[in-house]
């Protein structure tokens, strides 16, 4: 099974595609920039303050997945949207 069960198979295939080893190594071994470090630190600080326990963090992950995979309902708002 794809790790992306909510995606069409052809899209999931791209997401799960293995990179060539040299490209993977180049991208993984590139030095971390100060911006990258600061952004990760800020992200972790926010997440662990808002969700201090492991249980709360894992709960958040379930809610976030449901939110991101919820079908989008498009509601017409004006004559143009309604095709008038």
């Amino acid at each position, binding site marked *: 099974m794809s790790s992306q069960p909510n995606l069409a198979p052809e899209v999931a295939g791209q997401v799960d595609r293995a990179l060539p*080893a040299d490209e993977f190594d180049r991208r993984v071994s590139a030095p971390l920039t100060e911006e990258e470090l600061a952004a*990760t630190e800020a992200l972790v600080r926010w997440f662990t303050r808002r969700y201090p326990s492991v249980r709360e963090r894992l709960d958040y*992950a379930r809610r976030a997945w449901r939110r991101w995979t919820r079908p989008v309902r498009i509601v017409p708002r004006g004559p143009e949207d309604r095709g008038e």
Partner: protein
Amino acid sequence: MERTEFDEGEFFRSLAASGVRVMLIGRRALVAYGLPVLTADYDLWLHVDDVQTLNEALRPLGLLPDRPVADARARGRYVLENDEHVDVMVARAASTKDGVRVLFDDVWARRRTLQYDQQTMIAVPCIEDLILTKRWAMRDRDVADIRLLEALKARGGGQP
């Protein structure tokens, strides 16, 4: 298949109470360490001798194996599923595509134990080993996960 209401707390409590040697791996382990990443399912790495015990422990939750124990052992992985999807790796070792061999026993010996709730602990690989597991498939998103873990490590994080 009968629809069930999955209780994540009960899932982790059942894992802990079963006494099996199992670690949470994959993106949910990153979440446990404090990295908010998106993920659909659960990834576990289980000692190959503990398959039957795990299956029995999770049966009351409606999580059923997709293949017999012997097949799971031979294949090195199987799935427990109902509305949830739990990928269970049972290989004694796995190699990264660049040839680094990662042994269950070594990773288990270096594991971190995190407090899920007041009664329940869950095991995860240490950050260095979690990075190694992210080298198994070498996917695009694994690059991002490794860089997040490296940044967490560099800033002295991973102290849940």
